[in-house]
């Protein structure tokens, strides 16, 4: 990695914050975009609704109006969940890329989502009838497990951790854990429930799940924003961060907790959705530079837009059937991954 150039651009952006205006514009347009996509997401679907129904459901709710019930019970939770999951994945990708200085880092490539869904499979198999809350706890533990395995393996290897080794270890752990989950699914006759988690999607989200998810994602996002300055410093390199007086271990620990919080929450509600955490931080970095104080909020907004857009596309592409949103994000994300891979993980 070309650390001198990296350091230079980072310190430049720390001092001159001319990127701030760009970032603010991105955030402003992004939030408008989010709002519009929520409206589109609520309006279109199997049951045809008009904009009047949508507005009515919010401002003049009638319990016996079927359209209003659809909006409140099905469409709105789905839209909100898509935004929360997209933001959570994108921000945890941004944190991972910032802390490890690894452009290929993201929850799905690093085996975090696979670990999470593996423990969900275990929970579904051995504790039938487990509550949604219990499932989320397993999901959090699992994301920790996946991350520990992948980072442990790649740091054990000769020559230490490199972007490529992380990606390879992540894909090996992912296929191992996925195979084990499939085996559990077949053994306990819950293959269908488990394949729902592997397909990934927000189509069957319940309002209660959204209520549950909300505090986790919000606190994760707040933690990420609080950490963002430290991450920018850590991104200069561990030595540089230490000499600037940063306690890097504390920052890394808090960063890891944030990643697990966000990814665990996202997987427990939407299953495995790949590539959002990979591409969104790159887009954000392209737009606003290398200051994580701007990258993280922009990632949150852009991630939300990407996932809700993917969800809308997934609904329309093959109506009336739903195409899993994970497949849509992969279609967008793979070319980008290939582009990064051609550079062998160098920024």
């Amino acid at each position, binding site marked *: 990695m070309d650390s001198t150039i990296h350091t230079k651009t980072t310190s430049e952006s720390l001092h001159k914050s001319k990127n701030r205006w760009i970032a603010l514009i991105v955030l402003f347009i992004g939030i408008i975009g989010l709002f519009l996509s929520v409206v589109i997401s609520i309006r279109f679907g199997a049951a045809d609704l008009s904009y009047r129904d949508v507005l009515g459901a919010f401002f003049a709710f009638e319990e016996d109006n079927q359209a209003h019930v659809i909006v409140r019970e099905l469409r709105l939770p789905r839209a909100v969940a898509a935004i929360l999951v997209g933001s959570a994945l994108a921000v945890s990708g941004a944190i991972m890329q910032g802390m490890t200085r690894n452009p290929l880092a993201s929850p799905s490539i690093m085996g975090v989502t696979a670990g999470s869904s593996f423990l969900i499979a275990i929970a579904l198999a051995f504790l039938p009838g487990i509550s949604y809350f219990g499932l989320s706890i397993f999901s959090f533990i699992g994301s920790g497990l996946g991350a520990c395995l992948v980072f442990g*393996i*790649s740091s*054990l*290897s*000769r*020559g230490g951790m490199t972007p*490529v*080794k992380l*990606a*390879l*270890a992540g*894909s*090996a*752990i992912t*296929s*191992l854990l*996925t*195979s*084990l989950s*499939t*085996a559990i699914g*077949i*053994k306990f*006759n819950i293959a269908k429930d488990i*394949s729902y988690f592997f*397909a990934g999607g927000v189509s069957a989200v319940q309002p209660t799940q959204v209520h549950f998810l909300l505090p986790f994602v919000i606190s994760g996002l707040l933690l990420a924003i609080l950490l963002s300055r430290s991450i920018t410093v850590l991104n200069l390199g561990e030595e540089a961060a230490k000499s600037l007086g940063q306690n890097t271990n504390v920052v890394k620990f808090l960063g890891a907790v944030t990643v697990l919080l966000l990814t665990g929450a996202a997987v427990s509600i939407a299953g495995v959705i*790949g*590539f959002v955490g990979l591409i969104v931080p790159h887009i954000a970095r392209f737009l606003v530079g290398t200051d994580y104080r701007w990258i993280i909020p922009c990632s949150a907004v852009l991630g939300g837009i990407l996932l809700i857009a993917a969800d809308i596309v997934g609904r329309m*592409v*093959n109506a009336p*059937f*739903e*195409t*899993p949103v*994970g*497949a*849509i994000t*992969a*279609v967008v*994300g*793979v070319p980008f*991954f*290939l582009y990064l*891979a*051609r550079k*062998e*993980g160098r920024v």
Partner: protein
Amino acid sequence: MSKRLINFKTLFFSTIFFIIITAIISINAGYIQIPLHEVIAALLGNGTDQNELTIFQFRLPRIFMALLVGMGISLSGAILQGVTQNPLADPGILGINSGAGFAVVLYMFFFQGASFLNGWASVYVLPITALAGAFLTAVLIYFLSRKNGHITPIRLLLMGIGMNGAFNAGILIFQMKMEPNDFTRALTWLSGAIWGANWNYVWALLPWLLILIPIAIYKSKVLDILLLGDSTATGVGINVARERKILLIIAVTLAGVCVAVGGGITFLGLLAPHITRQLVGPKHSKCLPLTAALGSFILLAADTLGRVVMAPSELPVGIVVSILGAPYFIYLLIKSI
């Protein structure tokens, strides 16, 4: 150095011996358990009708399929590792399997109907479809990972990971559009079950292997020389670009036809060649035959295991191989690069 390596002939024949033992266990194991003496009686033509049906129509074709597919995939891995000089190359990891899988899913989707794999024609069409998919993927990966005229092992692997992601997404999209019945079949097929096991598939696969495996072994000297590096190989008088292309075509064809009947089996192409190299060293004239034998053994053992471990439900063989193979891949990752 060579003294520490175990004698090739001893190893080869003991592997064959183990294959025979496993085959006997495999005939015996499964939903219907047949005692050993009845197996022998049936093989000699004196068994009950039910036992003969089970053995000749279900167990035996399945065993032969496992042997052939294991042979093909592990040889494909060995050749790929030799040609790309990349110890971690494997048709599954490089995305060739999922490319073939995607082609097969497309085929199932466009020529759907409950009989999509029962007609006699589809037995022969399916391998061709998978082959087309495998070749397309291989060409794609080859060109995507080429930069300034050369290919680095790492870039090749990353491209493979990306391709896997793309094809799996494609498979997912088309699977969702399928009839539930076809969907289940496609899913089982993709996780690598040797489920289609009947004699037709064995006959469809056999000619490919009978042609390709001897060519591969005949080329083992070329593979040895290629390992010395391009300039040495050219110096010895080998047309490096041409030989590499031929060997790649052999490897991709082997993987493609095996995936067509065996489904997605990852890590086998990694496991068998590496164990072989540990045992007999890197010389391909010894390495390739033993890899083929060992690959057959591993797949047959994995298939038997998958049938026994969770009886009466069956674990697809691809899952068993992944559970065994992924830790080995990780071990190689820690050790080698």
